[in-house]
């Protein structure tokens, strides 16, 4: 990495001077990430959405479910920034509350996916043998199942309550995490520090948690941000088909689904929820790509 140090003639004093300037990998990683303007834009978008979700009750100009028969399907105006729906409810306010649902579902689902994926990947890579074979075949099978099909069947059996949707989206998402973790473990398993830990009698669980898992934090972040993006899209598709979470506050997908019936006389109804989904997902994708580029060691120059 630090090629200048090895090329310069050995001068202990100089080396000592240079040494403190050399940054740790973590600092390099952060620098590379924040130098990427698109990644920073992604962070900005996601933070904005999170703030919108958390402070929805403060920001929203109208209660999300307040019905105003007089103001049905009004185009965007000062009073209703993004127009109203067929019951005269403010679309902007509903989108803010929708952010709560979409983000919570996506974050929790990705949490489920990462937990399953990392655990199975660790076990598979560390133990190898038949266990590895079995876990990898299951991973392949899950990879092959068309996600939306799986969701539809799952929801029709277990219902559309939040817990069932969290688990279903998590079950779609874990295979890539498992494969990544397994590859990490396979490459780290023979490193000296792992061998040393083993020689010192550390248990398998300790090695996995203390030595292997921390090395997978950065690549997991990449997969997690892309996974959250995927979960938001999957949840919106499910809501669009009419199988989304059944709760009083609308999710973004449900709004597009209803707005679809009014495209000819209320274009704003279906457009704004879709734009919101697109911008949010784009934010997570920007972050994921930025993290991936920052992880690539060829960037540290």
């Amino acid at each position, binding site marked *: 990495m630090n090629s200048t140090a090895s090329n310069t003639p050995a001068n202990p004093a100089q080396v000592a001077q240079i040494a403190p300037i050399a940054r740790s990998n973590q600092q390099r990683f952060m620098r590379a990430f924040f130098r990427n303007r*698109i990644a920073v834009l992604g962070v900005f978008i996601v933070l904005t959405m999170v703030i919108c979700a958390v402070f929805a009750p403060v920001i929203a100009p109208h209660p999300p479910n307040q019905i105003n028969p007089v103001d049905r399907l009004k185009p965007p105006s000062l009073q209703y920034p993004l127009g109203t729906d067929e019951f005269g409810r403010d679309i902007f306010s509903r989108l803010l509350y929708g952010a709560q649902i979409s983000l919570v579902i996506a974050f929790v689902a990705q949490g489920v996916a990462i937990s399953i994926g990392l655990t199975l990947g660790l076990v598979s890579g560390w133990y190898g043998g038949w266990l590895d074979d079995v876990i990898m075949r299951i991973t392949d099978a899950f*990879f*092959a*199942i*068309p*996600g*939306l*099909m799986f969701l*539809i*069947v799952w929801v*029709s*059996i277990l*219902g559309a309550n939040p817990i069932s949707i969290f688990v279903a989206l998590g079950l779609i998402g874990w295979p890539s995490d498992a494969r990544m973790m397994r590859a990490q473990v396979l490459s780290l398993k023979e490193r000296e520090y792992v061998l040393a830990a083993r020689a010192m009698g550390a248990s398998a669980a300790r090695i996995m948690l203390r030595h292997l898992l921390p090395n997978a934090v950065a690549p997991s972040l990449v997969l997690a941000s892309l996974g959250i*993006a995927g979960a938001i*899209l999957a949840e*919106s*598709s499910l809501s*669009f*088909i009419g199988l989304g979470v059944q709760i009083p506050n609308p999710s973004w*997908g449900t709004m*597009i*689904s209803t707005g*679809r019936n009014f*495209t*000819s006389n209320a*274009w704003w109804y*279906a*457009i704004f*929820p*879709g734009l919101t*989904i*697109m*911008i949010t*997902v*784009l934010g997570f*994708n*920007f972050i994921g*790509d930025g993290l991936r580029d920052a992880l690539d060691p060829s960037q540290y120059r």
Partner: protein
Amino acid sequence: MTKYIARRVLQMIPTLLIIFTVIFVLRYLMPGDPLKATLGEEYNRLDPATIARLEEELGINRPFLVQYFDHLGRMLRLDLGRSFIERQPVIDIIGYRLPRTLQLMLGGIAVGLLIGIPAGVISALRQYSWLDHTLMVIALIGLSMPVFWQGLMAQLLLTQSTTGIKIFPVAGFGDGDPWYMVLPSLVLGTNLSAVVARITRTSMLEVKGQDYLKTARAKGLTNRVVLFRHHMRNAMLPIVTIVGLQFGGIMGGALVTETIFNWPGLGRVIVTAIQRLDTPVILGVLTMGALTFMVANLITDLIYALIDPRIRYN
């Protein structure tokens, strides 16, 4: 090669059996009474005797295992039964709708490759230029839009007289008129083209530094020959892989696209069938979907051998 294909086809049989069993169990686990779901309101007006007769007729009053082996036996004889709702043979439903779904999926894949590969190649050849950055941001935007919303926007902008632009028909199959297929294919192919563009770029950049490209250039081949014969051809393998991996996603996308464009494919049937517990349709269509998926995987593997002569199956 023939031997390899034969073995792969044979391997599909146990896999299909497992898939059929899983689907059957899942269908059994779905809450609700199939007869009630089929008849809806009408169910409440029927007297118990009629209900018993109908249940007998549909065969849904028998024990689980009897039903399972009955369905399995008929499936093996390629008799998929009749839809509870439409009273139409399931094989006819599949025979009419599967080709239309496949047609749409092929349209989507064609769009994905025709847009994705050139975009990725240009990006890689002009790495770090503004064109590269722009194309890659567009690709990410393409990846970030829900398919159904893209469909709605396409309909809103390109098919309505309200915007003054009426290029495409709003929806429908148009009795096979290819013009009706363009917009749904574009919508279905957008996501794929974004994925393909990104993979093509990475793959092209990986091949870029290889010695055989320098050799090819050194021996005086034109840029075009080097690009097409040496550079792109060697970069194609990951693209085939990704299209194969995306096949499930394309199926899901087709389902949603069909709903929006009123396309007479299998996707629209399956959602209704699941919601109304139409057992023969669920079993037939899902098993057939799985089979299509496996055949697509086999074709992907065969295309590998076609592109890369180093790969030999035996």
